[in-house]
């Protein structure tokens, strides 16, 4: 069949249309017979034949639709009209369940709440963040490597060996030493698998699942970060809970980045997974090379596009990834510092919440 279709395409379009009409007529004839549902046909051969036909029809329709759309676009271009609007594909994110907890920019209570919360001191730059990083009791191989990279990512971070201390004791110690956050890297079978981020002295405790960790040396063409204070990008933390988690993350980093360092740390939230990336960027003005590329492209493409091309000597940003790469997923957010037994949770993930794929909490 495919060969036949190709053949028909090779011939002129009109011929194809004719053929199409012919087929259509045939179909109409058969359609009366095919009023019965295909799935009710008991003979497998016949059933599969009907299915094959259905499938073929569907494919043809789709191709026809695409063709007509393309034609409309082309005509609009020729006539200088506005292009027909492109349809946005429906994704899980843009069909997300409506959530009343999504923060709105005109919510004064939100800002009042922000002023009153545990991080406001750090975020208003009254307190300089000072981070204590420690591990679980048994720690080896990728754990220490990950911590050494975290130390290079987070300024003013100090690693303390865990020893056999209780976490609550460590919290007390850190409070006395004026630390503002504690990060605990939990490893399981020599692989970091959880991250505990704790605000001090009374900030919340967030428990993240850590996955897909790639260390610096495993990243191709990685760069080595400088000791400048990084910039921070927090993406898509929309709900109240997300906002709070975002502020918790924000309170780990200093609020006055050195822009000369051109380091940027990204926490990108997508479908409740928080992706961590660490880059160094550079702005470059490569006139000659740019124009060359443009020239090549223009020869291939239409002439209209040449007019629309950007002015010469455009600056471009190039990224070089450095530092680790990992993914976080929030498991629970606890009110107060670490206390598993008597603690109060602000948010815990429960299985009864997973009744829809389109419900997100951050």
């Amino acid at each position: 069949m495919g060969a036949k279709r190709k053949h028909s395409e090779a011939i002129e379009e009109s011929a194809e249309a004719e053929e199409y009409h012919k087929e259509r007529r045939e179909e109409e004839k058969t359609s009366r017979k095919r009023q019965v549902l295909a799935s009710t046909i008991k003979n497998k051969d016949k059933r599969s034949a009907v299915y094959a036909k259905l499938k073929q029809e569907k494919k043809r329709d789709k191709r026809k639709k695409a063709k007509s759309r393309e034609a409309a676009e082309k005509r609009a271009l020729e006539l200088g009209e506005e292009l027909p609007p492109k349809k946005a594909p429906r994704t899980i994110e843009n069909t997300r369940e409506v959530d009343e907890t999504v923060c709105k920019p005109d919510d004064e209570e939100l800002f009042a709440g922000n002023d009153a919360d545990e991080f406001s001191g750090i975020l208003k730059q009254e307190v300089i963040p000072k981070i204590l990083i420690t591990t679980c009791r048994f720690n080896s191989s990728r754990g220490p490597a990950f911590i050494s990279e975290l130390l290079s990512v987070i300024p003013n971070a100090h690693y303390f060996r865990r020893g056999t201390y209780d976490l609550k004791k460590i919290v007390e110690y850190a409070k006395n030493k004026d630390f503002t956050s504690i990060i605990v890297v939990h490893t399981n079978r020599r692989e970091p698998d959880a991250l505990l981020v704790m605000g001090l002295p009374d900030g919340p405790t967030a428990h993240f699942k850590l996955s897909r960790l790639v260390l610096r040396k495993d990243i191709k063409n990685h760069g080595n970060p400088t000791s400048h204070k990084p910039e921070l990008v927090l993406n898509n933390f929309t709900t109240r809970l997300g906002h709070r988690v975002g502020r918790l993350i924000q309170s780990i980093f200093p609020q006055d980045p050195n822009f000369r360092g051109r380091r940027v740390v990204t926490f990108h939230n997508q479908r409740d997974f928080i992706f961590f990336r660490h880059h160094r960027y550079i702005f470059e003005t490569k006139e000659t090379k740019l124009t060359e590329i443009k020239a090549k492209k223009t020869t291939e493409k239409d002439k209209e596009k040449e007019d629309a091309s950007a002015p010469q000597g455009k600056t471009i940003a190039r990224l070089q990834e450095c530092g680790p790469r990992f993914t976080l997923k929030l498991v629970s957010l606890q009110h107060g510092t670490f206390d598993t037994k008597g603690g109060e949770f602000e948010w815990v993930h429960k299985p009864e919440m997973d009744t829809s794929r389109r419900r997100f909490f951050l």
Partner: protein
Amino acid sequence: MPRTIAVDCPGCPPIRALTFDTLGLIKVIEARRVDGNQGNVSSPKVVERWGEPNSSNCILAASIDDRRIDPLLALARKSGLIEVINPLNGDIRVSAKSDVGSDDDSVVGIHLFRRERSESSSSRSHTLLTTTTKGAATLRSLELADSSADSLISDSLKTWRVCSSGDVSCSAVDGNECFALYGGKGVEVNVWDLEKCDKIWTAKSPPKDSLGIFTPTWFTSATFLCKDDPRKIVAGTNNHQVRLYDIASQRRPVISFDFREASIKAVTADLDGNTVYFGTGSGDLASADMRTGKLLGCFIGKCSGSIRSIVRHPELPIIASCGLDSYLRLWNTKTRQLLSAVFLKQHLNVVLVDSNFEDEGRAPYAVTEAPSNEEHEVIQNLDGEVEDGHVLPVKRKKASKDKQQNKLKPKKKNKKRVQAEGDG
């Protein structure tokens, strides 16, 4: 086709609830009938917000005296301020700075007495009982005048120390307002007679278990089980246990059972005198029958944050719960179904229900519109119903007392006596 809208909850009957949050805001949530008495009920909404957001204003405890005439609401703030407001319009009637507003000593419980305690000349004198973390319980008298300048909270009628060490974290006053109970971290549940101001009973911690491990005392919530009977106490511990104490029988818990893994943060008794509702630090809400100690069921509704307060509606079969997930949730107690959830943006500490709402809801209308005869009738009918409602508990009381007498005997020790009775 993906479902892009949230599932609607069934509406709830007309109700008015007040929530108190960590920013010191008081929010009034009302569900009203849409048109007259047709039965169409709008979903609960925030109708009013009182106070300015400020973290030092955080409300720690509140108590309502929801009388038909001149209701009052007492609340304690983190800054040490004790305020008495009108729950209908939020006007501050009295506010006073308590002497206990120091750093690590804050009010954990406040109770506004419904009946007149002191037989003073003015009929508008009220009594307030406050308890602090360090265990200082204070009875204050309240003089209310027409303007807030004239009225005042007197310093203290009586003060006593509940405990010498430990932190008090819960307090409750029984239905007849004669007894108060306290419990906390390192403080066993103890009951005080409010007339004489002396301790009449203290609980004893349960014995060591088979491994010789002793769990330190840490009560996080407590309440009297029956409204009319101050002898039965239900307490929730940090060690995720719910315990029933009976003053009449023994000092150790009569019934004790575990519930899941998080500490019990709120316990509320039902009106029937044997059901309790309790909420945990990880957002589980359940009810149990305290006669048997069996779990009746859990309230399921995507409740994700610690439950700080549960309150039972005095007439309707509804409980309201609130907590750190900033939702006020209304549940049906019989079906354990979520009726409605309202997002209130802040961490909520206390929720209270205004039981006289049905006629209150009408009162503002009556002011704006000319009250028709029908409405008067409705109000009268309602009054009648309410009176019936008042009659009912008396009946219930009798029944419950009978039950207690029947029940106390077998419960007093253990099954031996029951068996003996059965044999005889």
